[in-house]
């Protein structure tokens, strides 16, 4: 498999070089991607938990006799 490359631009000379990534750089990128995935999952869990809590609260208010209009007025 072809190793990923990077571009390095020397701002002093304007010379562009194409350089292969080191194993360490590849692993670092993978670790960052994995960390982001974990944050995404946590975000989705948080959003779902809020939605579930809201639905539960609305159901309880309806059981107390509030109309749908009255419940939505609380948003």
């Amino acid at each position: 498999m072809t190793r990923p490359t990077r571009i390095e631009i020397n701002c002093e000379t304007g010379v562009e070089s194409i350089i292969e990534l080191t194993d360490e750089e590849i692993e670092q990128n993978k670790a960052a991607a994995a960390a982001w995935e974990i944050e995404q999952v946590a975000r989705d869990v948080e959003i779902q938990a809020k939605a579930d809590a809201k639905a539960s609260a609305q159901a309880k208010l309806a059981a107390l006799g509030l109309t749908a209009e009255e419940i939505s007025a609380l948003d």
Partner: protein
Amino acid sequence: MANTYYKLASTTIGTAIASVTFSSISQSYTDLKIVGSTRQDGTANGIQLSLTFNSSASGYSRTLVYGAGSGSPVSVTGNSEALARFGWAQDGAYTANVFGDFEIYIPSYSGSTYTKSFLGNSVTENNATEAYMGPHSDLWTDTAAAITSVTITISSGTTLFSQYSTFSLYGIKSS
């Protein structure tokens, strides 16, 4: 751009690559600004961009607030990380031939008295519900060294910046 902006370097990607490094950055300016237009060659959701200074792999902190097209905005933070994650490369599954954008401002990048920080914005563009956008602020506490090189990386082990992604570095005097 204001006449205090000097283009130090710019590149348009010819073939897919993992990162872009601006090296040997002149210390003659007050601040730096980096502007980019990027797209990734994969279709993974919300692949992030990241940055390192002087090839250092430690001491980055970040705060990012973002929206993804649905749900409430979310904030994420991180400390003592190996790189500064700050935004997103345009998803390859998003609207064809459209690139996402980012800009980064690095104040007082020269000198060795203060630790370095940067702030900016990043957006992706999609003719659908999902698209990412958000402001960020980042800090590099590893050292107070002057910034002589900056590397922008796509944070994935396999996904690369697509052809025609562009990156430009500006020096700003007397800001």
